Every structure is written in structure tokens, then in C-alpha cells.
């Protein structure tokens, strides 16, 4: 079955109340969405809650899927928007602007450790990044958005996106290459 037809089949079956079809959709995309949610939120617990909320939204909004993009792309966009809403809401609650977080931008180059960075170490270190630069780093360096897109998604200036990503890389370097 072609990908578009397979997507349409899953959507139709789910809308007809077939939970097994929705489980197929979930299993196909859960890891990618959970990974994004954990990294954006900076914690596995929050990531799990976000995963639940996102797939509930997917279930509720499946009727609005028109097939213009692949189902996976549609799910990812919905997940990204939900994660961004979460980040904005948390930022508003903390009454802190992204730009004011972690204003220490001083950077001292030092001799790096020669050992290559392990992926597991980087994964853990991303969770430790301050809010603001973590989201910019995840969107730019992990998810592959350019700075203009990151700026639009996080509602910040393009220059701020660049400085946040620089700050994140510098912090990660300090933790992982010392």
C-alpha cells in the first residue's frame, strides 16, 4: 500500500472508532514525538505528559487531516506547536523572557578534551541547558530548523536565536569537552 493510501486508511479506521488503527499510528510516530517533547521540556516526566496530550490532540483533530502532507508531518507539526505552547506557557508562568535567562555569556576558550562526545552524554547535557537556549538549540541543532524558522517558532529575533544557540553550544562544550 502506498504511504498516502496507508495514511488515509489509518485515519478512516480511527475515525470509525478502530483503536487498533490509532495504535498503529501511535507506534509509528511515538518515539519521534516523545523525543522531541522530552528535549523541548527538558525532562522525561514532562515529555511523557506532553506525549499523552499530543496524541490526544491527534486523536481529536484527525478529522481535520486533509492529506496535504504526510500523516507523520502533520503529527509532527501538531506536536511541535503543542511543545511550543507548553514552553511559552511555562515561560509566562516563570515571568521570565527568553532573552533574560542565563545572561552569563562570557566564554573562555580552553583546551578541549580529545575524547569524542558520546550521544548519551549530549542527551543528558541538553536537559541541563537553561530554558531559552535549550529550545533554540533543540530546534536548530537537533531538529534542523534554520535561525529564521527558530525565531518564528519561538517568537524571538533571529539574532537572539543565534546567540541562544551559541550560548547552548558553549555551555555544552564546557560540560562535555573539559
Amino acid at each position: 500500500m502506498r504511504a498516502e493510501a496507508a495514511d488515509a486508511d489509518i485515519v478512516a479506521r480511527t475515525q470509525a472508532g478502530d483503536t487498533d488503527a490509532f495504535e498503529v499510528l501511535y507506534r509509528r510516530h511515538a518515539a519521534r514525538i516523545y523525543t522531541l517533547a522530552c528535549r523541548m521540556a527538558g525532562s522525561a516526566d514532562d515529555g511523557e505528559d506532553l506525549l499523552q496530550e499530543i496524541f490526544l490532540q491527534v486523536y481529536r483533530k484527525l478529522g481535520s487531516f486533509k492529506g496535504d502532507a504526510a500523516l507523520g508531518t502533520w503529527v509532527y507539526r501538531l506536536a511541535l506547536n503543542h511543545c511550543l505552547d507548553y514552553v511559552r506557557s511555562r515561560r509566562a508562568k516563570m515571568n521570565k523572557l527568553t532573552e533574560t535567562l542565563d545572561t552569563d555569556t562570557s566564554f573562555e576558550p580552553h583546551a578541549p578534551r580529545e575524547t569524542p562526545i558520546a550521544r548519551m552524554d549530549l542527551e543528558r547535557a541538553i536537559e541541563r541547558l537553561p530554558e531559552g537556549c535549550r529550545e533554540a538549540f533543540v530546534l536548530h541543532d537537533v531538529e534542523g530548523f534554520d535561525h529564521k524558522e527558530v525565531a518564528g517558532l519561538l517568537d524571538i529575533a533571529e539574532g537572539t536565536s543565534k546567540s541562544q544557540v551559541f550560548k547552548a553550544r558553549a555551555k555544552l562544550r564546557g560540560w562535555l569537552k573539559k
Partner: protein
Amino acid sequence: MHPNDAAITDYIDGTLDVRERAEIDRHLESCAACRRLVEDFREIKGVARSLDLREPPVRSWTRLERAIKLEERPSVARRSPAWLQPRQLAWLAAAAALVLSTVVGLKFMSNGARRAAPAANTAAQSAAADAASANASAQSVEAELRQAEDHYEKAIKGLEQIANAEQDVFDPKTAATLQKNLAVIDQAISESRAALRAEPASEPAQESLLESFKAKMGLLQDTVALINEMRKGNDAGAARIVSGIKQKGD
């Protein structure tokens, strides 16, 4: 002069024009510190693009499935799969409600803990109000802890009833694994309670107790999910859950 942050970032991202790029190339030839910086940033970016996906906990689908079943969707023509008999529906709904109440309890506790911190800071400004305010905050946190504990205990009791009633579906090895993991968690709960009795305001002890409750909830939810998958005849789903339970116990 070293390039600024934005220039370094653009250089690594390959978005500079030819002239700007050549300028930085020239600088890097003579500046070892910036050269190392660029190398490290490139490595970080490269590793970041190759990070592995993370698998969600096995209970996530079961939680989601329960939540979906509780959704009121009159526009969706519901069908009842053969495996989902009225008895199963009843305990699934009960479990979901209990889990929900627990989550509410936990969030309440978290908010309470956050509220307590600024209250203590304000009190520090006034020596006279300090003791009274701190005491009130401590009492508030303790009250909220008790409330969260109640929620957990109710949820755990409900899930235990479900798990105990259905435990005949387990093979002896799986049953032993479940019992072993439960015993470890119960021990942690017991130790956390003892620590709290000795020092009721101890935040580590409070957190440890709530974490232990959460772990027990998680294990019982996994157990219910396992029963569910076994009744569905989904061997692959059951194996995934058993594997997750074993990993947590290791």
C-alpha cells in the same frame, strides 16, 4: 580580534558569504583557541543531528488508550472490540479515574511546594513574622503532602485490587518479577515514611516518598496494561511491557 558569537554561529552553519567566510578562515589560521571552538561546536552540532530517538515508557500507550476511551465523542461510531468486555471496560475506567485523581494530587503538591518557597523568602524580611510564616508554610506543605499521599494510596489500592483479581493470567516467572519489584518499592515507601516521621519537614524525604508512590503507581499501571495485552492476545505488546518491568527492576 576574535569573530563575534553571531559570526561564529553563521560560520559553523555555513550561512556566511564568501568574503565573510574567508575572513574567518584567515583568523582561524592564526588563532588556535577559536579554531578549537569551531571544531568543538561542529562536533556538538554533528552529534546533535545524530542523536537516537527515545522510546516512550510502555505504559504510555495504555494511558492514552484509556484516556481515549473516556473521551466523549458522539461523532465517532464506536465499536467494542471483542476483547473489551463490560468487565474490562469497568476496571479500565476505574483505573483511569484513579490515575487522574492521583495526577491532580501530584500537581497540587508541586504547586504547593512552589508556593511555599516565596512565602519563606518574604518571611526572611521580617524577623518577627519569620517563625510564624515558616511554620505556616511547613504545615501547608505537610498538609498537601498528606493530601497527595491520600490520592496515591487510593489510586494504588484500586490498581492493586485490579491486579490481584487478574493475576491468574501471569506465568510464575512474571508473577515473581512483579512481586520482587513491588517489594523493592514498598521497602522504599517504608523507608521514606520512617525518614518523614523522624523529620517531617525534610524535602528529600517528601520527594522520596512521592517518587516511591509514583514508582508503585507506574508498576501497577504496567501490570494492568500487561493484563490488558494478555487478554487481547497481543504477545508482542505483553513482551514489551514485561521487558520494561524487568528493566526497571534491574
